[in-house]
């Protein structure tokens, strides 16, 4: 299989600070526009936003001494996002389904669901402190 060539790549380690996350997202949004992903950019933006917030808030628990590793890549055919925090991790299979009747009025648990909806692939590592997301052209 041919190695993917990326039109844009950005890898950075940031502190547990959503202002830093916002900066990276803004860079990525510009690249999405440039490479033909304008229509999907709302969904990709939301997925990356949710993943970053999860890393900062749930993973690193706002501990500013902990870092988030962010790997963003864009090509006309594919978008790749990998985000890792320094937290204990979690088991995504144990998340309650927020769309179930009994969970609808609970103010939690929608981030991962939105990630899964807007990206084609969402995978967590075994520990649960790293998420890999992709979107591909059909």
């Amino acid at each position, binding site marked *: 299989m041919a190695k993917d060539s990326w039109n844009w790549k950005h890898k950075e380690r940031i502190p547990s600070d*959503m202002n830093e996350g*916002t900066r990276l997202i803004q860079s990525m949004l510009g690249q999405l526009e440039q490479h033909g992903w304008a229509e999907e950019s*709302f*969904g990709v*933006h*939301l997925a990356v*936003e*949710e993943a970053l*917030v999860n890393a900062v*808030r749930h993973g690193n628990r706002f501990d500013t001494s902990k870092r988030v590793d962010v790997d963003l890549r864009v090509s006309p055919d594919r978008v790749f996002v990998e985000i890792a925090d320094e937290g204990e991790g979690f088991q995504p299979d144990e998340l309650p389904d*927020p*769309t179930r009747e009994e969970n*609808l*009025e*609970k*103010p*939690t648990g*929608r*981030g991962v*669901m*939105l990630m899964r*909806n807007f990206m084609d692939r969402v995978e967590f590592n075994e520990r649960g402190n790293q998420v890999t997301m992709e979107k591909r052209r059909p």
Partner: protein
Amino acid sequence: MDMAVQRRVEVSEIGDVTVVQFVDRKIIDAVSIQELGDELFVLVEQENRKSLLLNFETVEFLSSAALNKLVVLDTKVKAHSGKLRLCCLRPEITEVFQITNLNRVFDIRDDESTALASF
């Protein structure tokens, strides 16, 4: 007299209905969402407004944290025997409510006049 400083919402009255519009086009960051929630909760819990319409026409983007805050607001409105409606959601925002099934929790109308008439 309401002494709260409102930074995240613009509040007006049409008849008995309190209409809220959002200052931020993108409701994403935690601080803004916290402040937004606080301003909305004041309307319900301190000012005892019973009919609340949230007009989303200026909102381009919102995160799950914002959705969660709206769920809390809905709980408070119900606890105060009030009514809450949402209107004027852009298609992408409507999609987010549908994906999360929150369109079953909230009463969402296409436009403000239809929403006002529903109270």
